[in-house]
């Protein structure tokens, strides 16, 4: 769909009118009061009615049917008028939705996509199993056909938000007599049924963002099989790509002063800032106008520098893709590097804060210190979840460098 400048302008006008009438006063920008729950729900309903929770999905599936340009205008106008845009479950909109649009049949799209767009159903993802971590394809959860249904037995682990989810999209084994990749199917089913047990997993950081989910003779309707029977691995790989990309964002770097030429700026521009260095300064102070501990300063400089270079690598890769100059660096590299950078950042923060960073709980530590410490512990999982760093290195070696098996 292409959109001319003038039609875009008309769209913007129309949006502006719609916002005036549809966005509750308490949610308008600059409103004093905190929006009530009812206002929030009204705002979500208004946005969802037009399909704007998933603006570029087709209208018939509950989306907004907008072009890229229109989506941008929508974001701009909402940002201008409202204090926030309502969001619905990420697993529905960013993971399952695109898969259904690509691999689902018409009936599946009509049934599931509108509910995702309206935020009616919370989804979770059933991938890893206790015995299948890096080797995902060795999964053992069985699905056996019985009439119009599949009977599911097994267990999934690392299921984010399963304890708040309604439905699961799940990889299951539907054939045990073929090579492991060829006997996997992708199926959707309701978690609110007998035989489903969900146990949150406590992490070393104290958080429980993951669950283990057990299935004992759980039922899935056969019509909720997405893609062909035993053809689930293709879908699985596509979803892993999505996931890896999302985990590859460059961690917070010092600044972007270098990326924005400032016309008419003084010749001695204000030095850009490093958030990490500023934090360190608070703990260590300065010596001769430099951060006091040279070894730590060097580590921070190395981090900021790598972070800057990594951000540029991401940008370059995007531009290369756009310019059709080959695939650029692999997403595996991005996932790998982003994880390792974030781990490094957390370790530096621990060094900076010294024994102030050792608190687990209680008010003798500042909330920020406690949060950063939990964050440090949580960061250890970055290089495991979404494919371990080792798996990413394997993928780079094989796919990008073409090294032999």
């Amino acid at each position, binding site marked *: 769909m292409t959109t001319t400048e003038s039609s875009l302008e008309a769209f913007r006008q129309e949006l502006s009118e719609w916002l005036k009438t549809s966005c509750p006063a308490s949610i308008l920008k600059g409103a004093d009061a905190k929006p009530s729950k009812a206002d929030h729900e009204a705002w979500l309903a208004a946005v969802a009615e037009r399909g704007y929770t998933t603006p570029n999905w087709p209208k018939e599936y509950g989306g907004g049917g907008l072009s890229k340009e229109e989506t941008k205008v929508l974001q701009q106008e909402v940002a201008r008028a409202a204090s926030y845009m309502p969001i619905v479950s990420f697993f529905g909109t960013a993971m399952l939705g695109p898969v259904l649009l690509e691999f689902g049949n018409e009936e599946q799209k009509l049934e599931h996509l509108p509910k995702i767009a309206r935020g009616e159903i919370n989804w979770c993802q059933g991938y890893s199993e206790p015995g299948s971590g890096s080797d995902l394809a060795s999964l053992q959860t069985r699905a056996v056909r019985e009439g119009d249904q599949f009977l599911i037995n097994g267990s999934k682990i690392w299921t984010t938000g399963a304890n708040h989810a309604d439905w699961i999209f799940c990889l299951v084994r539907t054939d045990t007599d073929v090579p492991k990749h060829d006997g996997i199917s992708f199926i959707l089913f309701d978690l609110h049924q007998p035989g489903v047990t969900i146990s949150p997993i406590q992490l070393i950081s104290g958080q429980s963002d993951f669950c283990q989910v057990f299935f004992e003779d759980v039922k899935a309707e056969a019509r909720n099989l997405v893609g062909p029977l035993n053809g689930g691995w293709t879908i699985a790989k596509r979803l892993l790509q999505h996931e890896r990309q999302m985990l590859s964002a460059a961690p917070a770097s010092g600044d972007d002063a270098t990326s924005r030429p400032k016309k008419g700026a003084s010749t001695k521009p204000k030095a850009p800032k490093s958030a990490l260095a500023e934090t360190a300064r608070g703990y260590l102070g300065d010596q001769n106008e430099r951060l006091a501990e040279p070894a730590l300063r060097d580590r921070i400089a190395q981090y900021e520098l790598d972070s800057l270079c990594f951000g540029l690598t991401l940008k370059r890769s995007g531009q290369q893709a756009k310019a059709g100059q080959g695939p650029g660096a692999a997403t595996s590299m991005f996932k790998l590097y982003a994880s390792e950078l974030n781990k490094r950042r957390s370790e530096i923060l621990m060094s900076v804060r010294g024994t102030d960073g*050792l608190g*687990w709980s209680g008010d*003798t530590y500042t909330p920020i210190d406690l949060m950063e410490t939990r964050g440090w512990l949580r960061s250890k999982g970055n290089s*495991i979840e979404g494919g371990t760093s080792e798996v990413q290195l394997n993928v780079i070696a094989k796919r990008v460098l073409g090294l032999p098996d």
Partner: protein
Amino acid sequence: MSLVLTEEQELLKETAAEFLREHAPVTHLREFRDREDAVGFSRKLWKEMAALGWAGIPFEETFGGAELGMAELGVVLEECGRNLAPYPFLSTVVMGGGVVAAGGTDAQKQAILPGVCEGETILALAFQETGRFSPYAISTKAEAGSDGFKLSGEKVFVLDGHVADHLIVAARTSGTAGERDGLTLFLVDPSGEGCEVIRTNTIDSRNTARVRLSGVAVETSAVLGEIGAGADLLDLAFDRATVAVSAELVGISTEVFERTVTYLKTREQFGVLIGTFQALKHRAAEMFCEVELSQAVVLDALRALDEDRPGASRLASAAKARCSDAASLVTCEGLQMHGGIGMTDEEEIGLFLKRAKVAELTLGDAAYHRDRFAQLTGF
């Protein structure tokens, strides 16, 4: 210079390993953590350890001690590291007890050390005032009056301060923060007026305290050692505690390393044991080297302290730097190689990682000790 254990030390090691494995394995720490125990360890078990002679290892027989040395304490602390046993060796035996033994009057020793040796008395050395270890950065004031001193200031990260029977407080009788001269140590009753002890909760499920002193009055007899020369006692305590915590770190590294190698030999992925993956093999072999180096330097540093060698402080810093880095490497690699399961609270690797981080940051991290090592090597 012997770097192997004597027969007696081997025996001590076996006893400690057996006792701790049976009575204070990692699950023991977890229990105290989960029930949010106010003490954080078993006083009863501590008395049993004392009965085995461990709490009195470095003290004179007169006071009920075993008259042994750091070498023997190191043996026990390594086993504590392997089991994450949260017992007050550092606070009470090495630092508090060490300071009393080295600087106390006969009366002070007689009043305190027998209780320490019996596992009755807990001591805590209160020196640090900010999150970063810096030995003489002490501002807490001790103002002299007619019949004693009044102490005012705030201390952080006071190991086992929450249950200490005696606090040993480093305060300034002269000079300003950062100066080596002018520090004096005082025995302080934590329940005395103006003394507030606030328990803090650290990631390793042990307990430290924040201590607020608001004009706490102490008599002249509470002075430990010479007035103004407290840094001599502190230096001694820091060197010993630095090596002691290094020995604990060696225990942690060795244990996590062994568990990880075992995991590599049992966990299957892609139809094979993950220990067959060469990249993991090489990383395991590199860890092995780090662990070996840690073990060797700690053994020598312990003996250097016992022999009062001129280079002992330098070795202490070498040990702390090496062992901190090794433990950090091994616990992080150990967790990574355990994969998702390593991230769970249920698996014990995370508990080792947490304790290793606390030990790493106790009494100066690797960077601090590398710098000190350089300074003591003349550059």
